[in-house]
């Protein structure tokens, strides 16, 4: 666990020196900062409009965890895939989805990435190897296994980074997946984003473990590791090792990443402040462990960017997020007739199969 009583010091191991990081250009490092700010500002603006009643359903904010998705997705090659759970905005933007399509999805508009049919928890971009966005806790864990299975079946050198939360580790299907992953040597990487709370239940109240959650992988003969999620360099270094293992040995990895969400489980989580976690704890993470500010400080210290230029990036991404709201607000809602589209592939394509027999039963 992260020691929250102290301010973050440079790690004993400086992961900036890891080869995967030592080779980064300044442009790439600045691009990561832009992505961090993009996620942060996209969600802050989304929250504002959620609170104005512009959206339905849930809004699970990723704010505080941005370095995990940005670091992980920065490593994706042609045959590396990503799938995650319902806290999916960060991963979506990190793989390169546009703010417009994402914001429009939150607003339930036809121009949304899922045509307004999925909502906050269900962003997808298969063209960017991004497979969602899944609402049922741990339900995505065997899907990620299957993506890795398909990569291997096709004889490709790739992987599937499968994200889950610390609450998901207590679902049975995760263990079925770990067993199969190890048994069949599948190139899947399970990334446990441990933000210490499954909704309002702390890690200590929900999970039995000795030292950490990832250690459970020992029972399956799977290599595991832990990473400090607030250090983007460390996330990249640890995941790079896992991806190399997937590519070269076709073996799975479980990586537990310590992280923290600044907001509640969802926006509708009234008890997250001063309820199941203390205000002091939240403030400590915000002021001392904010991955966006830490990366920014790091780049300034490295002489990669000036404070002024970092401010510009912050402002630009905020403006982009505001523009995406305008796009979303001006977009049409899906037509009621479209409710029957995207149910059956064969019907959508009006193939012979799609034109044979009755598929829908209203009247």
């Amino acid at each position, binding site marked *: 666990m992260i020691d929250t009583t102290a301010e973050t010091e440079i790690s004993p191991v400086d992961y900036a020196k890891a080869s995967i990081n030592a080779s980064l250009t300044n442009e790439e490092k600045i691009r990561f900062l832009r992505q961090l700010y993009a996620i942060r500002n996209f969600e802050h603006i989304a929250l504002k409009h959620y609170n104005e009643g512009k959206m339905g359903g849930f809004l699970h904010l990723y704010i505080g965890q941005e370095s995990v998705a940005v670091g992980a997705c920065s490593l994706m090659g042609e045959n590396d*895939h990503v*799938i995650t759970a319902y806290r999916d905005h960060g991963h979506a933007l990190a793989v390169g989805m546009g703010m417009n399509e994402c914001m429009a999805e939150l607003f339930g508009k036809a121009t*949304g*990435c*899922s*045509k*307004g*049919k*999925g909502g906050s928890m*269900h962003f*997808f*971009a*298969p063209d960017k190897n991004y*497979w*969602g*966005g*899944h*609402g*049922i806790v741990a*339900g995505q*864990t*065997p*899907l*990620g*296994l*299957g*993506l*890795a*299975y*398909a*990569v291997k*079946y*096709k004889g490709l050198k790739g992987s*599937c980074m499968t994200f889950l939360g610390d609450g998901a580790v207590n679902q*049975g*299907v995760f263990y*079925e*997946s770990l*067993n*199969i992953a190890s*048994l069949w040597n599948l190139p899947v990487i399970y990334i446990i984003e441990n933000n210490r709370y499954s909704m309002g239940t702390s890690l200590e109240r929900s999970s039995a473990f000795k030292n950490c959650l990832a250690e459970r992988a020992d029972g399956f003969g799977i290599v595991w590791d832990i990473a400090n999620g607030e250090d983007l360099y460390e996330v990249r270094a640890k995941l790079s090792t896992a991806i190399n293992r997937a590519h070269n040995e076709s073996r799975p990895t479980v990586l537990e990443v310590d992280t923290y969400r600044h907001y509640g489980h969802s926006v509708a989580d009234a008890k997250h402040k001063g309820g199941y976690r203390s205000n002091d704890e939240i403030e400590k993470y915000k002021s001392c462990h904010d991955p966006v500010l830490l990366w920014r400080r790091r780049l300034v210290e490295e002489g990669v960017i000036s404070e002024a230029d970092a401010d510009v990036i912050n402002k630009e991404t905020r403006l982009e997020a505001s523009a995406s709201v305008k796009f979303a607000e001006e977009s049409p809602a899906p037509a009621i007739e479209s409710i029957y*589209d*995207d*149910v*059956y*592939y*064969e019907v*959508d*394509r009006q*193939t*012979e*199969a799609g034109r*044979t*027999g*009755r*598929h*829908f*039963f209203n*009247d």
Partner: protein
Amino acid sequence: MAVIEYRDALNQAFAEEIERDPNVFLIGEEVAEYDGAYKVTRGLWQKYGDKRLVDAPISEAGFIGMAVGASMLGLRPVIELMFWSFCTVAYDQIINNAGCVRYMSGGLINCPIVIRGPANGGTNVGATHSHTPENWLANIPGLKVVSAATAYDAKGLMKTAIRDNDPVMFMENTLLYGEKGEVPEEEYVIPLGKADIKRAGSDITFIGHGRAALTALKAAEQLADEKGIQAEVIDLRSIRPLDEEAILASVAKTHRVVLVDENKPFCGVSAQIAALIQEKAFDELDAPIRRVCTLDAPAIYSPAVEKLQLPTVERVLEKALSIL
């Protein structure tokens, strides 16, 4: 025409589709080295090897979810459930992932899987192994549900199901695996969404799917022999999509209907068919629609009683005569 067992008709379908498409593979418990719990896949592992015939651990949620994920990248897994009853432990993967992923992604993803296995009572294995979940699954827009009554249908429908680009839930029957029927040497497929008139008649219509269609057929033969009454027997073959035209055409011809259904009566497939007929052919009916379903209790173990719990020829005849 060759006369072969239902199980071997399925086996032929698998072999032909494995050879036709390199993305097709079979996965499930005991499907490979053991030759299948019911010998449906016998010989295939020896012929096609580990890549195409995959023995899975007893982890239905794990391997069905895995197959759904693999299908999103273009593989075409054919997944065996040793009993369809075991779908309960994989329900999240079937309903939420296979059934909803296309919709929730706005059509960006499709899931070309087949989940197959026996879905029947009547084998004295108790309630948990005797479910007929076709109505549970047909309730989910996004899933397709198919039920094969004969060897010919099993092969033709399975080949189509494997080629279909949506998730197809394929209902087989342990009591039918050993039943023989004619299967052509040449290749054929049967479209999903087309019912089959198993017997033409003009006096009354029996509608069923799977083994219930065969029970209806036996009742129809007896009715003709003993009473000279000609019943038409419609085998739905596909429940979703449904061949509504075939149902309505037969009702318009006979004006009397008995629905035979191994589902339980409450919210069973036959309840949907009855609703459809009264909505679309009310004026064609000369009598109330009658139903013969599995008696509405968990499947009883007792061999002597369980055979009476399922629809019987006697009950079909009794209902038919009550409206003739």
